[in-house]
């Protein structure tokens, strides 16, 4: 760039991080959520497409999935929003001790969710090989389980990271805040799947 230039302003005073839509991390997470939200939306569309071809839902003689594991999972994952919110707020206040404690707590309370998810697979009452109904409900539960696992792995890494020297860098607090945002996506995306898996088969004739 050898052409002459005119200096019209200085950027040195700008901060090196910010939370929410001002941060690049937020936009990356948003991109993830839109892509995966689309996958969920299309998988849900496939569910209704297959349902449309059936005389009854679930197809006779299959019974709807047992409610217990899935409902317990739903209650528990909704409750995780409480510590999740505390962590997000603490990160945005740079409150490192609360962030560390909260992340350890989240790493522990996600474990029973993973166990319950295992029981959910066992309570579907159909195999993915049996028919298209079985295939699509296994797919929905599997898709969500992959999100649960990836976010769990993500949280574990972040928890360890926040106990190292890097935990005190301002951009790590942005990471924590946006990880909490992603967890909201994980439990929000579960709610329609819960209804599709456990309640639509009960409500329909």
């Amino acid at each position: 760039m050898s052409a002459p230039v005119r200096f019209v302003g200085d950027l040195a005073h700008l901060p090196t991080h910010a939370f929410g839509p001002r941060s690049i991390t937020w936009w990356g997470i948003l991109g993830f959520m839109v892509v995966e939200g689309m996958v969920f939306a299309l998988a849900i569309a496939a569910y209704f497409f297959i349902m449309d071809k059936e005389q009854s839902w679930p197809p006779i003689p299959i019974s709807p999935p047992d409610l217990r594991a899935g409902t317990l999972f739903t209650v528990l994952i909704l409750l995780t929003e409480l510590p999740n919110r505390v962590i997000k707020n603490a990160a945005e206040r740079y409150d490192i001790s609360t962030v560390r404690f909260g992340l350890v707590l989240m790493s522990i309370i996600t474990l029973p969710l993973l166990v319950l998810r295992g029981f959910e697979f066992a309570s579907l009452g159909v195999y993915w090989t049996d028919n298209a109904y079985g295939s699509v409900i296994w797919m929905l539960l599997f898709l969500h389980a992959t999100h649960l696992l990836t976010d769990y792995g993500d949280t574990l890494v972040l928890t360890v990271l926040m106990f190292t020297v890097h935990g005190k860098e301002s951009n790590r607090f942005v990471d924590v805040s946006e990880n909490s945002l992603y967890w909201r996506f994980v439990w929000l995306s579960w709610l329609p799947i819960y209804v599709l898996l456990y309640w639509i088969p009960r409500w329909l004739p």
Partner: protein
Amino acid sequence: MSDVARDGEALQGAELEARLHRTWSRAPGLWGWLTTVDHKDIGRRYIYTAMTLLILGGALAAAMRLQLATPESGLISAARYNQIFTMHGTTMMFLFAVPVMEAVAIYIIPLMVGTRNIAFPRLNAFSYWTYLFGALLLWVAFALNVGPDAGWFMYVPLSGPEFTPGKRTDIWAQMITFTEVAAIAVAVELIVTILKFRAPGMTIARMPLYVWSILVTSIMVVLSLPAVALASGMLLADRLIGTQFYNPFEHGDALLWQHLFWFFAHPEVYIIFLPAMGFVSQIVETFTQRPVFAYAALVLATVAIGLLSFGVWVHHMFATGLPRLGYDFYTAASMAVAVPSAIQIFCWIATMWLGRPRFAVPLLYVVAFIVTFVIGGLTGVMVASVPLDLQLHDSYFVVAHLHYVLIGGGVFPLLGALTYWFPKLTGRLLSEGLGKAAFWCVFLGFNAAFFPMHITGMLGMPRRVYTYPTGMGWDALNMMSSLMTGVIVIGGILFVTNVVLALRRPPDAGPNPWNAPGLEWAADSPPAPYNFEHIPVVSSHTPLWEEGPLNVMTGLRVDDREQVVTTAIEAQPDIRYPSPEPTLWPLLSAVALAALFIGSIFTPWAVVIGAVPLAVGFTVWFWPKNAPDGEPVIE
């Protein structure tokens, strides 16, 4: 803070350039080549790879035309022919067209919006390797005679476990997953680059039209590509672990595949075509030396095409027996696309009419685009009508239509854009004489080869047949198409020769050889690793045509990779952003992902076992490498 080196009055010129070079250059040798996260390195290798695949896909097309030149030809067997047309369509759509459009954007967009690198540069490197491994998977499989053979849209039940045993379809389905991961990653990078890394002052209403077209395209990629990833995942599951999604005997449905596939694949046509429209706008502007006519109308037309493209997928399925109301809706929506497309065409013609057009090679490709694309658009309106579609479905008329739209609407503008931006890519101008010779061969050869296919189709020749009997009235038309394909090939050879000869000359193009208005022309040709010494500030959508020297802002660190983040709409400076350093981990993660994907063609356990190295790769990739330095640290 005062001991941190920053550009400004006290630090500019040669001293600044030397220090920025130290900070932003990649490491020397192979290590630097493997670890680079520079958008120009990645963009360039993406373009080379995609163009190589264009040549490979073109060679397959030439092979098909050789076989079809005469009736009852025994040159290629039926089974081999099935593989060849499947590989041709798959390569062109998944490995050439979408990647090449993203590739050009990876190179040009950060320059055009006036920043130093793309958003998420490591993801960008990861996406390239993922794309490369997907392309290798498909072509190595083809070379080993296990290439897919059920058509590029891989309809079930033909592609299902009963009718296509073996691994051919699985290889196709996993290649899809590779390319979708790569393409979606790039789309997210481009959206964030466009919304958050624009030069101060480049408000959303001052974005060049190419930037608009890439923004809309990338949003379309994010919304449509998950459909084919999901669909091919379900196909793989049907074939590998016995799910029943597409099996009608267990209440699955073959049409579910078609819906999901076309929900992706129709927008895909516009994903190829909208960036091309962006090329056309930039080329028309530069070669008429005036701002493009009716900027706002062009932006709205781009957005309208993006929206409408999600409402037309069912017109690929008119022959499947849909509800009557569905016919009406999708016919109307398909025809409606002609309106914003026509608005754009009129705007470009008006720009040329009002300006002083100089018919250099890039503008010739634009004229070729307008002529060819209008013909393709008109045949598109024809097949949007259900009664006509039912007659022409699966005939050579459709082959003619889709090539008019994709070559006319995609490849011609691409060749124009590569000629136009060649100095920015390499520092050299292409030869005008060779460029024109290549242009006329490609343009005339294309029309002479593909126009007859409209008639061949109306005379009843179905597509995807490896041969045809004599006496159907198709012989002369097919011979004509085949001979003229040779002319296109000559044009292609001339284009490549032009590139090779130019690369042997020393770089002498200068920063702005066309007197173009975009910010990318303010950087050197080819640009330095940091793109701009100081961050440019703009006050119109043709900044280099403004009077006086270029306005710039100072104050970014020069001993650390720093970019300025601006607000999404107004482009006000907001944050100094630490841009990631080069690393090998995107490549290693892509290798782990490739092992997982390729393994899962053979056993579902590959997903479980392969997740471990992948998780390790991602963790090390994201783990901060340097000790915290001068920037804010808490406590």
